């Protein structure tokens, strides 16, 4: 793992990988959108409103995945002191926050016609809103320090502490009675979702994942390059003063 923690090696590797991941994301997204919006049937009870689910569920999964990877990156950064881990954590935050916002917005759009409400304070919705605020809090905290390294350290602590919210989100619909429905895909035994709807959902989830990875790679690259510029500028200023 130490081999990949070298920022220069990461810049080289990610440049080779990026076009492939981005291309995969584009192909999967085109296929997924066709399957979800055109080829899949309407739901017996929800009608065409069910199509919101093909965006909502992948966005929700990746909002959790994004925060989990931030927590893992923070732990790696804290234990092994890899500078790349903290930068990757910072690069993931705005992307995870955006996917969480998409999840909340599409959920609201689905809830109005189906449940009869835009928003209710049930355990699932509240815990996802807290996740959104954790992302925003992380971004605010990281940029609140003059010394970027100290900002990243403070942010890493918040990312780790906030991870306690992840199992709460996942199991909120099972621990407490909520307005939000229980899981359909990860249910044990017979899947609660018909194969004609499950496949489009899985393709969309793969497309969102590839898109997410593309964005994280791009943003991590730009964080590294930005850091290099800062260091060069500081060295230049130091040289000029001498």
């Amino acid at each position, binding site marked *: 793992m130490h081999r990949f923690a070298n920022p220069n090696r990461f810049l080289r590797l990610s440049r080779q990988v990026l076009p492939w991941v981005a291309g995969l994301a584009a192909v999967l997204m085109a296929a997924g959108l066709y399957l979800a919006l055109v080829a899949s049937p309407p739901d017996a009870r929800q009608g065409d409103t069910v199509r919101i689910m093909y965006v909502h569920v992948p966005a929700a999964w990746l909002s959790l995945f994004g925060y989990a990877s931030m927590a893992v990156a923070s732990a790696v950064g804290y234990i092994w002191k890899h500078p790349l881990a903290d930068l990757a954590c910072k690069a993931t935050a705005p992307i995870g926050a955006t996917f969480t916002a998409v999840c909340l917005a599409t959920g609201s759009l689905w809830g109005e016609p189906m449940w009869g409400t835009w928003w209710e304070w049930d355990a699932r919705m509240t815990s996802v809103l807290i996740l959104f605020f954790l992302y925003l809090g992380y971004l605010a905290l990281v940029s609140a320090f003059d010394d970027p390294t100290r900002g990243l350290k403070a942010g890493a602590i918040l990312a*780790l502490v906030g991870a306690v919210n992840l199992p709460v989100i996942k199991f909120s619909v099972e621990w407490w*009675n909520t*307005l939000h429905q229980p899981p359909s895909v990860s249910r044990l035994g017979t899947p609660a979702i018909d194969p004609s709807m499950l496949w489009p959902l899985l393709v969309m989830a793969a497309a969102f994942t590839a898109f997410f990875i593309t964005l994280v790679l791009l943003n991590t690259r730009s964080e590294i390059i930005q850091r290099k510029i800062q260091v060069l500028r500081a060295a230049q200023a130091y040289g000029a003063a001498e």
Partner: protein
Amino acid sequence: MRRKHQRTALLAMAVIGIGTAAALTLAALQDNLLFFYGPGEIEAQHLVAGQRFRLGGLVVDGSIRRLDDGLTITFDVTDTVETVSVVYVGPVPDLFAEGQGVIANGMLDRDGVFQADELLAKHDENYMPPEVAERLERAGHPTQ
């Protein structure tokens, strides 16, 4: 190497500590985190007439009645053991139907009838195209 182990141990301890704290907090808040109460929980929760709460359960088959004013509807909510009658005035959400989950916001009156001023339909975890739903229905598995 030693410092790395120290940091790992510290991190593991912090994670366990925060996890325990969160679990205890959520366990203490258990009752407040419930979004609704079933008909069978009304007594145990000491919910009396005039006290606002959300009542949740299944709409009893054949119980939905629309009154002549065209706005008021009455129906029964059950947890399959106990049943409460509900009166509601206003528009109903798309998914509101007999045999389906519903959450009503309001209070009990003196006669034990739940006077609701807000009605939410609950969706279950089942997703299927209309043809599959019809086939299941014909095979004797009520899905709706």
